């Protein structure tokens, strides 16, 4: 194992097509540990496709992606250990309770479900009162908090967020940003897709913009310093 420091994410010429339609056309970028990057762009510009490729949910047609040095094609398992995707869909099981949903998430990583830890995380995302309610009876915002709680239960080094502010009130937004800041503090990195740049600007270090599957230089006014 080399002691070389790897970028958190390294994409080289990533291209992906769905059938004959190219969603990504040769995207190359690097995200360093400790960086929070916002990914902007119109609908259909390829943002979700790129994120899903990095998360190993998708195998890109061309190009390479490395997460902390691990190639997503050959070391997908290693990538999945250290990264997490919080997607558009919550992926919550509606007939299970909040606790059971989280218990399942922990057990799917092969670990035993520690009831104490799970309860602590449920409190942390503000679902303490609903711990034993079935997800079906929660609001959309509350279900999204379950998705957040899932991430809190797993220490990851790369977070990939697709529209994380959807359905959240100010408190929910604050929690997302808190999650991201903590990650940065630990030396991790994150890529956030959002339409709502105002909510993300407090935590974001720089922005990238996709248009029709290719990166474009954002106009200077959008470059931000975090603070």
């Amino acid at each position, binding site marked *: 194992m080399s002691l070389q420091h790897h970028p958190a994410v390294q994409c080289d010429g990533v291209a992906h097509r769905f059938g004959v339609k190219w969603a990504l056309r040769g995207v190359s970028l690097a995200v360093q540990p400790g960086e929070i990057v916002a990914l902007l762009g119109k609908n259909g510009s390829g943002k979700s496709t790129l994120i899903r490729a990095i998360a190993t949910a998708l195998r890109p047609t061309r190009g390479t992606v490395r997460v902390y040095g691990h190639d997503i094609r050959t070391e997908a398992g290693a990538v999945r250990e250290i990264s997490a*995707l919080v997607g558009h*869909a919550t*992926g919550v099981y509606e007939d299970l309770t909040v606790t059971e949903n989280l218990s399942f998430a922990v057990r799917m*990583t092969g670990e035993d479900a520690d009831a104490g830890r799970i309860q602590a995380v449920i409190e942390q995302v503000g679902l303490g009162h609903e711990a034993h309610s079935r997800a079906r009876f929660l609001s959309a915002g509350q279900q999204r908090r379950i998705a957040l709680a899932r991430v809190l239960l797993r220490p990851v080094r790369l977070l990939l967020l697709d529209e994380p502010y959807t359905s959240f009130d100010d408190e929910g937004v604050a929690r997302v940003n808190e999650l991201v800041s903590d990650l940065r503090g630990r030396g991790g990195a994150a890529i956030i897709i959002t339409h709502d740049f105002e909510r993300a600007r407090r935590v974001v270090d720089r922005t990238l913009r996709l248009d029709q599957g290719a990166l474009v230089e954002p106009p200077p006014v959008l470059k931000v310093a975090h603070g």
Partner: protein
Amino acid sequence: MAERLWAREFARVRAVAWKDLATERRTRANFNAVVFFAALTLLLFGFALGADTDAVKAASAGVLWLTVLFSGVLVFNRSYQTELDTGALELLLLYPGERWAIFAGKFIANLAFVLLVEAVILPLAVVLYHMPLERAPWQIVGVMLLGTVGFVTLGTFYAAMASRVRAREVLLPLLLFPMLVPVLIASVQATAAFLSGDVMGDSRVWVRLLVVFDAIFLVAALLAFEHVIEG
């Protein structure tokens, strides 16, 4: 190191099986509907075969197995439905670990479900069709187990695909039933042989066929699952 990896996969298998069974227990409507449909099928076959008790008795093994197939097929697409509703399938695939663990977990949950349905249906069939179960009760239960394993293996496998495309209710039987012809033939023949006392030892070749079929397709499904479960 290898033992740790196996232990992790088995933990994942248990987690998936638990999740599917827990979800099913909550919404018992599914189980009740399948059992009701199976009972209805048994009755309808009775009407279709006519009043002649001998004809009914002779057809009993075949009717039993067709009932299992027609009602069991309702189980498989449903087992993927919970994942599809809220986009949980993609997340399920992103947990570190092997894909076959997901198949194994779903297989176990579906097997438990179908066996439970059979546990209700078999006594009903014995009564309605005058099946002399007492001649070889454990052997018949054994055949039901073997046949169900083959059925659930292929059902769980094909439903991973059928549940995600148009016309899923029709596509699953269309894909599944031709593949189950050996299971149907072997199970019915073995069951019928045991019901009639198995004088000629006919059952042996059929039981062997079932064992071979189950082994081959369980392995094939476990190996091929990663190719069908991904996006």
